[in-house]
């Protein structure tokens, strides 16, 4: 039986889809069978970030409504054999997904895969609640910034109340993934520190992804950063976070301020 992980945040634009793609790819590279589900019905983007946008035929809504078979809708990644994508539909009908339909799809995927990773839409409405509904674990993507932390707190409340696990009286495993961490600004005291974020949310840390231009470069070409630039600091941070998800006890290193070279300073270039 596979594990279901929801990647969620409440706030939009914090890096849920990017993190889903990168964590998923990193997990699949360890040999695990991984499927990523895009729950953002109407605004799908995981297909684009994964570089599979031209291969979408059927989607989550089709499968949930039993208009297509799972095997017809799953898209196998061209780079990693054990990585699959179940795209969201572009329908504008908000009620296209039912709890029953989603439950059926997730139960079927649990049988076939080691990890079922659900990319949640932003917000706390129906879509976000369906994405977390059947989760065993949650990765809460948070930026070190007041509005993102507030929304994460809200999402944690929902995870503890509205998931099947919570309703059965079990606890859902939660992890904070801090993204877009800027070491220089943190050093100047201009950004909430990691300790602040963890203390406020009282949830353990899965990893810290530094703000890095490589993440944008990777999404430009439709690849998780872990595959596109494996030596990049953000990619390494995602790989380590994935290993922690697998249960490894790896210490989290605080990203350090990257030093600019002499030439970079003269030309005003930013560090990679």
């Amino acid at each position, binding site marked *: 039986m596979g594990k279901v992980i929801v990647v969620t945040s409440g706030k939009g634009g914090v890096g849920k889809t990017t993190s889903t793609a990168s964590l998923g790819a990193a997990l699949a590279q360890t040999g695990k069978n991984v499927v990523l589900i895009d729950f953002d019905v109407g605004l799908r983007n995981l297909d684009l970030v994964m570089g599979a946008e031209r291969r979408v035929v059927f989607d989550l809504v089709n499968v949930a409504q039993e208009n297509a078979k799972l095997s017809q809708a799953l898209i196998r990644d061209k780079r990693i054999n054990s990585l699959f994508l179940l795209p969201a539909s572009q329908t504008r009908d908000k009620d296209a997904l039912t709890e029953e339909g989603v439950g059926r799809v997730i139960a079927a995927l649990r049988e076939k895969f080691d990890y079922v990773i659900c990319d949640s839409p932003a917000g706390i409405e129906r879509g976000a609640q369906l994405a977390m509904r059947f989760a065993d674990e949650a990765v809460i993507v948070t930026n070190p*910034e*007041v509005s993102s932390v*507030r929304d994460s707190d809200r999402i944690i409340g929902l995870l503890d109340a509205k998931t099947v696990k919570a309703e059965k009286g079990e606890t859902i495993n939660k992890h904070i993934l801090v993204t877009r961490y800027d070491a220089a600004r943190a050093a*100047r*005291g201009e*950004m909430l520190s990691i300790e*602040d974020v963890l203390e*406020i949310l009282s949830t353990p840390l899965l990893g810290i992804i530094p703000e890095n231009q490589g993440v944008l470069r990777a999404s430009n070409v439709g690849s998780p950063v872990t595959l596109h630039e494996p030596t990049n600091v953000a990619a390494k941070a995602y790989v380590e976070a994935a290993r922690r998800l697998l249960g490894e006890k790896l210490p989290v290193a605080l990203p350090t301020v990257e030093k600019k070279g002499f030439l970079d300073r003269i030309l005003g270039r930013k560090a990679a």
Partner: protein
Amino acid sequence: MKLLELFKRRGSADEARERLQLLLAYERKNRDQPDLVAALREEIMAVIAKHVAVDEDKVKIAMDRGERVSTLEIDIEVPNGGLKKEKKAA
């Protein structure tokens, strides 16, 4: 000690943390509870409307949450001669 703290003084992050802690303490307590301000407004308005004709737009409600006590300020503009007359049977 003071001098040390001066060197350690951080920027706006400290303020961010303090604001968040205060806000979240309140939000966690009141999660899933009906909106207190909205409920109060409705009931107070109903009581006043029994006796005075009040324009809904002339009612201002302000809430200020403190660490220990909060204040609820309700400002109602009552028009002169707005008193409702006893209805006489026609």
